[in-house]
């Protein structure tokens, strides 16, 4: 709760979003069933290969979410409209969740296929670092009370973080490739493509839905902050 806050806004209305949510869940279920049903057992991984339909989309969606963070952060610094800030925050949260999901699913996948939970492979490590960068972003947000500071600072951090992601990936790759490599995730063979694409879409819809819901919640939180501010208003009356 800060002494200065952006224009008090109407709390947002859910509108058709709940419906959208149900649809995307349904589509997700369908895509999973379809993919699992159609894809033949992989000759190397057997049915472990099915993990791809959750792991890979999660990873891709992560990138999309953090892309949104970058975009909305830039918008916020430019237009100084608080809603962009809240959108960035929501995207960052959901992105972090999907990033964590990617890590966990990947590790669950890696255990049987590589025999280890983790290897310091370029992609794995850079994903972990990406995750940490945005954990930092979220920590910053929760450590700063003043709405204006929170907005400007996290925007700066979000942008720098996003810029840094490709660099991290590159550097880690170099770091890795200067030493012996371990078995990399197998590049994709066509008969799995359809299922993967469908699931990627499903994850995308889910992400959009989650971000939207988180965004509405964030708007309500801010509205509440305004309210408590109004309560604090004027300090001692009488």
């Amino acid at each position, binding site marked *: 709760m800060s002494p200065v806050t952006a224009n008090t806004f109407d709390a947002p209305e859910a509108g058709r979003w709940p419906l959208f949510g149900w649809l995307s869940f349904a589509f997700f279920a369908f895509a999973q069933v379809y993919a699992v049903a159609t894809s033949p057992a992989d000759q190397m991984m057997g049915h472990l290969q099915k993990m791809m339909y959750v792991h890979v989309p999660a990873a891709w969606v992560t990138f999309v979410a953090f892309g949104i963070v970058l975009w909305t952060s830039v918008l916020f610094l430019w237009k100084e409209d608080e809603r962009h800030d809240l959108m960035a925050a929501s995207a960052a949260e959901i992105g972090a969740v999907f990033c964590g999901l990617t890590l966990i699913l990947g*590790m669950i996948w890696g255990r049987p296929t590589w025999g*280890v*939970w*983790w*290897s*310091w492979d370029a992609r794995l*490590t850079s994903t*972990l*670092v990406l995750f*940490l960068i945005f*954990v*930092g972003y*979220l*920590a910053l947000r*929760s*450590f700063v009370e003043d709405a204006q500071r929170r907005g400007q600072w996290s925007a700066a951090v979000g942008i720098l973080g996003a810029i840094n992601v490709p660099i991290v990936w590159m550097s880690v790759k170099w*770091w*890795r490739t200067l*030493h*012996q490599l371990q078995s990399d995730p197998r590049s994709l063979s066509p008969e799995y493509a359809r299922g993967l694409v469908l699931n990627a879409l499903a994850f995308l819809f889910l992400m959009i839905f989650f971000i939207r819901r988180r965004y509405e919640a964030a708007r309500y939180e801010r509205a509440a902050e305004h309210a408590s501010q109004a309560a604090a208003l004027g300090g001692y009356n009488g």
Partner: protein
Amino acid sequence: MALHDDMRRIRAIVWKDLTTERRSKAGFNAVAALGVTILVLFGFALGPDTKALQDAAAGVLWLAVLFAGVLAFNRSYQVELDGGALEVLLLYPGARWAIFAGKLIANLIFVLAMLVIVVAVGIVLFQVRIPAQWPSLIGIMLLGVIGLVSLGTFYAAMSSRSRAREVLLPLLLYPMLIPVLLASMEATKAFLTGDIMNAVGAWVQMLALFDVIFLVATFWAFESVIEV
């Protein structure tokens, strides 16, 4: 003052510390995340080849806990300092050791919770094989943490008064902690590498001994440290 008064006071302080910790929302999560980040840094520093990492695991885990824990100690007095709350705290009647006890317990809870996370992640990242005798390993970690926290809480009380807290605390603490750290690292390593026969017992005894010494010494000395 009667003992149960002190108990009530200790509870109040523990509650207060943990609440402020929780309130400053990401307080714990941030420290834990930092512990993990430090683990990753070590991973990069010690190069990608698995063998080296596995050998270093025991030491690295303890260092990560140490570096992250130090921050927690400072924070627990930071709360008192801004706004001169410490003076008020000192002016409450009753024994001062209660203040120390309260902060000690709060920090203990905090660091243990963090340790769990860091160790869990560490086991994965450094591909540690969990030994059959993991229960006794937990015992060792408990002993290590007690030593760490008792000294840490004590020195934090000292350094908190000076500016440049962040520098002073580790500077005082790390050298003093070396016996505890060494014992914990060696004992842990012995367990992880599986060759128990070699003198784990000795390390553990040493650890327990130091814990007792540190606890007694800090409780005794706290009064005079916090006094002025």
